[in-house]
């Protein structure tokens, strides 16, 4: 019986519908986990391992209010061309030479999902 429970729990975890965060954008989630977490944090709250030493704090991507003020095209530009391109801090880097436009569009969609501030 125990084995059965363990097996079905495993099956649940593996089933794509039961992915814990339930993201509709798994590729963007993977990119975020690789490139953005260092500053924006494992919990997407702006508290990555680099944040403590930074003079401008990384944006809290779970902050629905602040994130809903940033339109999609600005978000796209901030990620592709860096903070300076949208009159924000240079500490938000340029990602356009690492990520394709398609990947950045998907990240924008993923961030809308993360902030629960979709339109």
């Amino acid at each position, binding site marked *: 019986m125990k084995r059965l429970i363990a097996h079905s729990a495993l099956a649940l975890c593996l089933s794509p519908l039961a992915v814990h965060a339930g993201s509709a954008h798994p590729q963007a989630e*993977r*990119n975020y*986990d*690789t*490139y953005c*977490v*260092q*500053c924006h*944090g*494992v*919990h997407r*709250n*702006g*508290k*990555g*391992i*680099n*944040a*403590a*030493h*930074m*003079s401008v704090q990384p944006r809290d991507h779970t902050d629905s209010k602040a994130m809903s003020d940033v339109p999609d095209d600005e978000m796209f530009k901030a990620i592709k061309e*860096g903070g300076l391109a949208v009159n924000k*801090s*240079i*500490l938000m*880097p*340029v*990602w356009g*030479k*690492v990520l394709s436009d398609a990947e950045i569009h998907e990240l924008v969609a993923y961030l809308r999902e993360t902030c629960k501030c979709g339109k």
Partner: protein
Amino acid sequence: MRHFLSALLLLSATAFAADGSQLLQQQCAQCHALSAPPQTSIDRLWSRKGPDLYYAGDKFQRNWLVAWLQAPVRIRPGGEFYRHHLKDGADGDAIDETTLTPHVKLDKDSAVAVADALLALHTPAPVESGAYKGAAVSATMGAMFFGKLRGCAACHQDAPGKGGMSGPELYTASSRLNADYVYSYIKHPQAFDAHVWMPDAGLGESDLQRLTGYLMQLKSGAKP
């Protein structure tokens, strides 16, 4: 007969210790790529157990290698790959030191042999030889560019405890790394690994010279 056998064993052990490339294959290859991977990917970054060494000959200074291999100290505060070594801290993410293990240590003879074997690795690395011109850089100016103006300090420390933790420390760059490697890496990190988590900032020549000069002229380990 017993004596003869153990003498033979001892002999082969020393001969073996002097063979740096064999040592590399036997003790290092499980964590380090010694030849260029056929392709890179995000998955490879996540499963890598140590930094790539296949372009070590273009990257490291010999004295540093010989010394470090005998007494390794941490270079990447968050280990490799940093994402495997995070935990919840008091105020945000923190490095989980308990998951970072000490690096293997070599005796002097093995360190020399391995260093020379590493320095012979020159798999097509995009290091532009002679790129760094070596002009003097004011430390104050350099620090300003490294920090405020170009944002390198978000991920790198230029003094112990000062700066970000997702990239290797750079306060020992001047004794550890070759200047042309530093220049080439800053210019285009993705040429070394297409998926590495250091962005290409698209810097111009004067920034590249200034930042390389700043790092190469920093006294190793100087206090903030």
